[in-house]
């Protein structure tokens, strides 16, 4: 995991995501999820390229399923984009990077 990616938990979700001044891209993932492995390096790259503009975090659904169910995540990988404390857009499934940045650009 890149140093620009924040590990999110049930405990820090509020302070890191909901109360964040910048938009946050949250990657919901799990060890057993093949497509999550595919998308992980892409998420790392985005974290570096959007540094200062977008905060990027990863949430392990095995450890923090409460957060996943709170936001209705029923399939992973799921990328939820939070802006001003609310979900502004979301992407389900592993998609190429340009798809993610396209949606991210439209939100920020």
């Amino acid at each position, binding site marked *: 995991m890149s140093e620009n990616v924040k590990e999110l938990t049930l405990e820090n979700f509020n302070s890191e995501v909901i109360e964040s001044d910048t938009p946050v891209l949250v990657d919901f993932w799990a060890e057993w*999820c*093949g*497509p999550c492995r595919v998308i992980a390096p892409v998420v790392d790259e985005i974290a570096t390229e959007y540094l200062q503009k977008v905060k990027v975090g990863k949430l392990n*659904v095995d450890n923090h399923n409460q957060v996943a169910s709170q936001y*209705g995540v*029923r*399939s992973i990988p*799921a990328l939820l984009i939070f802006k001003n404390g609310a979900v502004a857009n979301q992407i389900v*499934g592993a998609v*190429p990077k340009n798809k993610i940045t396209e949606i991210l650009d439209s939100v920020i």
Partner: protein
Amino acid sequence: MNRKVIIIGSGPAGLTAALYTARANLNPLVFEGNQPGGQLTITTDVENYPGFPEGIMGPELMEKFRTQATRFGAECHFKHVTKVDFNTRPFKVWVGNDTFTSDSIIIATGASAKMLGLESEKELMGYGVSACATCDGFFFKDKKVLIVGGGDTAMEEATYLTKFASEVKIVHRRDEFRASKIMVERAMNNDKISVIWNSSIKEIMGSKENGVHGVLLENSKDKSTVEEKCDGVFMAIGHKPNTDLFADILDSDNTGYLITKEGSTATNIDGVYACGDVQDHLYRQAVTAAGSGCMSAIDAERYLEAL
């Protein structure tokens, strides 16, 4: 830069073709598509790939395939091809607005899970509708789910889903399963699994916000409809080849599978080869896909030598 070989797809067929063409110094460019690693990346244990006596996880096996191909110089990109032109030489391949050219093409785009074709199904995909029990089953702990289908995949996924769900109902449009006996027995011996016979789904009810809450079922005999409550719907109604890119360009059979010349992987266009599930509706195994990927690489190599 014009390439010698472009490979479209990155499952066992595509990556084996990449390995062989890389070792032949053809410097292959691989477009991995929307699902790098292919269908095995959404499975768990692979127990029938030779050389792994203890079994291996699907995603891990595909990482090994990729590492082996790149070790010899294959270039793999997580990009999805959007258009092709095989009427000109060199052949043209587009990824969005970027154009790539190549003297030969190996198609290994594989197959994807078939869907029912309902608007509501498309809308709720990833929000309670799924085509992959091993990916999404986790999110249905103590929930009631339906699985649609009657083949081995449906039986296997129904059994798998009982690890999480409190109740699994198999919805099948006929009054008997085409799945193998052992798979049917395993499913039927599970207390959490029951079957709704002679029925098909007409509509899936729910929203992106709150997920799925039920389906409308139609009885295939008397056409009566009934609502069935559930929290998730899993599709296991077979596969279709990913050949949309090649419609009207390459010969395919009436179910969409690309046709290759007997005993080779040649398509109807010289220099364009097809391997793996995209041209195989009979065997559809990782090892047969890998085998045909190797054949494509050798076919392409010979074609390039003769140019």
